[in-house]
């Protein structure tokens, strides 16, 4: 009995020693892990952080940028453009935050920027509604907010200084007008045009604008708009949607894809169903109209798979930078600023389209143009 007890006791002692060692080991492991995290986290920022402490320079403008995510090439190009425009060489300090497609992350980021007392907040919102509270907080803290890319839907427009981005409705109108002109040149009667629309993520500004333009144009020109369904801006989903469209309708000759990734999916679905894509719709080809003009999209435009690719310019950095300079100089800026955007095609039959009183030239895509573009 005593023996047993002693042995137990001894065991406990050794166990105890082990614990001390173990806990030390664990702590050091944790410390290593932590160092790793901090290192990875700060690999870019260490210098900045030190600088921040050394020189609280009054002339360096601090910008907080809440980007909605990194879901596409377009978005990455947009982020890069911002980072280049607000570089240290240009006299800025940029706090960047990736919202990972979540509004609550973006709201948290804006609150963080407010606490960090940045000079300006840039917001590329993931969706349009639900921003009142946090924008009010920014306003109360005296920090001007510039909205980028997608719009915010707030009753009080004074909550933000300005909005910079694309006119999605105009983009859609351009694509539709091009189709209208093209069919007139080729003598195709409007009732022979059978369109399906692979929509973007429902509720996104680009989806709302581009869909609205198509619906208006179809009504005005008498096109036959067969069906609309969301492809959620992804290739896989668009492929699935297009596949079901092809099984349902055998007379589709125009596919209106609301971004390039959807166009790729649609092309795959069409080709694997044994049909051909191209602009020769009188001879059974299916025409693809697309948006965004990513490199891959323009490559497909160059080889004739996409009939028309309408640009959606992600390079907003310089534009926003010049606006901030204007505010700094005490100038007033416009509430809505649109960026310039082109339309690209290989088809030479339409040279110019006009919407309202403005004419837009069609850029004939070449390898050189493709190579000169940065995104």
């Amino acid at each position, binding site marked *: 009995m005593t023996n047993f007890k002693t042995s137990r006791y001894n065991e406990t002692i050794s166990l105890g020693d082990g614990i001390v060692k173990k806990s030390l080991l664990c702590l050091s492991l944790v410390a290593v892990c932590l160092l790793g995290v901090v290192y990875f986290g700060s690999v870019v920022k260490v210098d900045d952080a030190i600088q921040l402490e050394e020189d609280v320079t009054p002339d360096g403008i601090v910008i907080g940028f809440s980007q909605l995510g990194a*879901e596409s090439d377009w978005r990455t190009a947009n982020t890069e453009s911002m980072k280049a425009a607000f570089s240290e060489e240009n006299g800025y300090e940029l706090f960047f935050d990736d919202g990972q497609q979540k509004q609550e992350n973006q709201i948290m980021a804006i609150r963080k920027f407010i606490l960090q007392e940045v000079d300006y907040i840039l917001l590329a919102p993931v969706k349009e509604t639900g921003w009142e509270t946090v924008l009010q907080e920014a306003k109360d803290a005296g920090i001007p907010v510039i909205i980028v890319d997608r719009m915010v839907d707030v009753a009080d427009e004074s909550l933000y200084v300005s909005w910079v981005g694309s006119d999605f409705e105009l983009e859609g109108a351009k694509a539709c007008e091009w189709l209208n002109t093209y069919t007139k040149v080729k003598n195709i009667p409007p009732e022979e045009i059978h369109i399906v629309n692979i929509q973007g993520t429902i509720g996104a500004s680009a989806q709302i604008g581009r869909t609205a333009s198509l619906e208006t144009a179809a009504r005005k020109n008498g096109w036959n708009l067969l069906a609309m369904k969301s492809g959620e801006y992804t*290739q*896989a989903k668009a492929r699935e949607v297009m596949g079901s469209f092809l099984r349902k309708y055998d007379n589709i000759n125009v596919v209106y894809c609301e971004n390039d990734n959807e166009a790729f999916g649609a092309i795959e679905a069409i080709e*694997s169903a*044994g049909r051909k894509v191209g602009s020769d719709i009188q001879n059974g080809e299916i025409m693809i109209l697309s948006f965004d003009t990513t490199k891959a999209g323009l490559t497909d435009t160059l080889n004739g798979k996409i009939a028309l690719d309408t640009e959606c310019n992600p390079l907003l950095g310089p534009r926003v930078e010049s606006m901030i300079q204007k505010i700094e100089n005490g100038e007033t800026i416009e509430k809505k600023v649109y960026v310039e955007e082109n339309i690209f095609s290989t088809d030479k039959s339409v040279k110019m389209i006009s919407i309202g009183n403005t004419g837009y030239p069609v850029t004939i895509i070449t390898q050189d143009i493709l190579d000169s573009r940065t995104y």
Partner: protein
Amino acid sequence: MQTKKSNYTSISEMLGKLVKQQIFIPVAALLLLAIFNLIADPGFYKISYGVNSAGSPVLSGYLMTILDYGSELAILAVGMTLVTASSGGQDISVGAAIAIAGSVMLKFICGMNTPVIIAFLAACVVSMFFGAFNGVLVAHFKIQPMVATLILYTAGRSIAAWINNNELPIVSDPKFAYLGGFIPGIPIPTPFFIAAAVVIISLLVLRFTNLGLYTQAVGINESSSRLNGLNPAFIKFITFVILGLCVAVVGLIKVSRLSTINYSVIAKDIEMDAILAVALGGNALGGGKFNLAASIIGAYVIQFLTTTLYKFNVQSDALPAYKAVVVIFLVVISAPVVRDYISSIGKKISHKEVA
């Protein structure tokens, strides 16, 4: 009276034997689905013959879709069955691991311009490495498989994005698309042949090596298998590595289908389908005896179910809800408690009849 009774018992015995066969569950489910589709819309079975954009003949139709996409699942089911049998748990990181394998492949093909085969081998090595990582956690550190693989599940897609710097490179070589599509001249989707090859190889391995026996031994009773001179940790480890290899093959098909990759979406929720295939194959999810053929049929049944649901215009996002109901139904009827209960009821009834 006497003859009638013996007749009755022989039929019920036969039925009982049939039902006891492990392969009965997936085959019955397959038949059930097939009959359902036949009644709902015979057009489901229509197969049309056409020519694709590359000018090669292709067969298309719902059945071909099942054959095509079910093959990916069948390959995964092979590895998942082994892992389940040896470790008594499942690997939930296969979807994330596919993303990594695909990303490695693209890195090699697009970033370094290597031939596809080298890219594939590299992906195999990487996938097997991650399989080994899971295997070490499970076999050596004795962490529950589902929790151990949770690590890779959390990090996998991030790692995949990191490998390619979050870019989405596109493979331009049209030949690469053959692997996930059609080889010119052959109207049956290539993934089916790949799956067939994987299945044949694994059946041969199980036939001519002791892997199958050892796996079952470890799964049934780890301690007694150790006493019999086996190394349970090593067996578990090796099954995870094999699953890694299966993952690389599926990654190849997946990447070939789209010529590119979307890190957050590729092979999403495929782990659920793979586990479901194993469960549907009648394999005990707690480890032990397994039947590879049943799992493979199970995989095609799942694809059959998915395709059927798609055909009835079920949104892809809503699909999991229906599948979940099927899973719950399956695990409930295969739960020992329920089986005992049913058999006790059955005995009571037959008892009454005899009396």
